[in-house]
């Protein structure tokens, strides 16, 4: 089932489009990796899909709710809220402005925290959780929102192997339940394990199954001819090194 259909999309901030020629489809059950350099248009695409930025051209069809799992900002760590409070934010727009979340909303938030494996941390302060736990709390928020599409902004950044594996399993389950996931990442190897890959660099470079899409040519067009970022350290290497690494 198609969750999002994008055709002929161009988007930008007043001047020339920072992203153009985008056309792809997200289907329920798909985990789609979004690859591209910094400034390549990944964030712009997210903003368009979330309805925060109007497209300059083209259409975006998304009948269901779209949730987002943002990167952690300093201000969020300092905010005195519990994991349960954060999950409850997914229910706010469903209530009229004068109503406070009641038992039904709290129940849904606890259920979502249980689904992401954080039932025991419901009352912990958000800023005290580990990076992986915080990402899962934000996934729980999207679940409370009842999102059929979830956008994740580099969710694995700075995460240790065990946390990454747990998040990877959670994403697998969310997709298996019929959601579509669009996951911005710098980790080409990880994207190989997902269902589809969308490469952008100011325009759409390629979209399709990783086996077809992740060729040396596409990666060079995505990350620029000379250098690519490699998974893990954020280091940069000449492209031929990366190619060897990716092929191995």
């Amino acid at each position, binding site marked *: 089932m198609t969750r999002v259909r994008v055709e002929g999309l161009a988007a930008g901030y007043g001047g020339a489009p920072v992203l153009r020629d985008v056309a792809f489809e997200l289907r329920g059950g798909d985990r789609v990796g979004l690859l591209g350099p910094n400034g390549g248009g990944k964030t712009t695409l997210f903003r368009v899909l979330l309805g925060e930025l109007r497209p300059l051209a083209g259409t975006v069809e998304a009948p269901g709710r779209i949730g987002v799992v943002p990167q952690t900002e300093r201000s969020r*760590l300092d905010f005195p809220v519990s994991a349960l409070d954060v999950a409850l934010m997914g229910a*706010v727009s469903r209530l009229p*402005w004068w109503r406070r979340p009641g038992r039904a909303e709290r129940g849904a938030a606890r259920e979502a925290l249980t689904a992401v494996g954080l039932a025991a941390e419901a009352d912990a302060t958000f800023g005290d959780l580990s990076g992986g736990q915080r990402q899962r709390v934000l996934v729980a928020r999207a679940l409370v929102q009842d999102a059929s599409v979830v956008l994740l902004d580099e969710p694995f950044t700075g995460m240790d192997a065990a946390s990454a594996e747990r998040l990877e399993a959670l994403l697998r389950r969310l997709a298996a339940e019929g959601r579509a996931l669009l996951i911005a990442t710098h980790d080409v190897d990880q994207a190989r394990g997902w269902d589809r890959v969308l490469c952008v660099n100011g325009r759409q470079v390629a979209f399709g199954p990783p086996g077809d899409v992740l060729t040396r040519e596409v990666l060079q067009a995505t990350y620029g001819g000379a250098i690519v970022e490699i998974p893990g350290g954020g280091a940069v290497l000449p492209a031929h090194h990366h190619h060897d690494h990716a092929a191995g």
Partner: protein
Amino acid sequence: MVLATLGSILADPWRDPLTRRALAEAVLLAIAGGAIGCWIVFYNLAYSAESLAHALLPGLVVAALAGLPLLLGGAAGLVLAALGVALAARVPAIGRDTGVAVVVTTLFGLGALLALSSASPPGLQGILFGDILGVSNTDLALAGGLVVVVLGALGALHGRLVLVGFDRSNARALGVSPVLVDAALLVLVAVVLLVAVQGLGNLLVVAVLIAPAASARLLARRLAPMMAAAAAIAVAGVVGGLYLSFYAGTAAGASIAAVLVGLYALAGASSAMRARGPSRPQSAQEP
């Protein structure tokens, strides 16, 4: 004997109906100010609140000179300030902060000019530094109404305030407009200033909004306890300030501000000591 002395020390200031009214007014303003102050701190509105308080001075002065209700003058002053700030913010060459500063100093200067002219009646000092001992029953009723409105509005808007404060950049995606939430909060802040400025003074009213919330931020780990703590600290500050004023013979508004700042210093010291102790959980952050 000792108890009786202590009792009379505590009770003496409140034998006069004037000081009892002042106490009631100050406590009501402290509750409203402490609660909304938490959101002023989280939304980085301290500068805006200070600016609004100062910018409504000419309105207050003109009202005092014309013998009109101060509330009316203050409201007119606020509208003028809001328009001025909105216009200044549209000048692309100067930043928003600079625009606000220009408008506010202009309006505050205008107010001071009017207040210090030879035609000005005595009592204008009360506008600058507050006249908590001169509150009327109407003022008290107004402050009571303010507490009901502020606590009611903060309760109703709580979920949206938390959401925008925590995750402004994604609020829209979660179905909440940050612009509307900001506007609602600013209107509430303006209403609090308008009512509180008469008792606490144009220059010192911000102390009741900011200092208790900043202190509570250091002590509480959740929003509801933080707001309760801020209101309690604000009440302690105004009561302590009125005692100080009574026994030291100092100005009431200034004494309240001094005690509030003292409480903030205490909260800061206690928070620093806890941070050095081994029991505080380390904030988990990836390298």
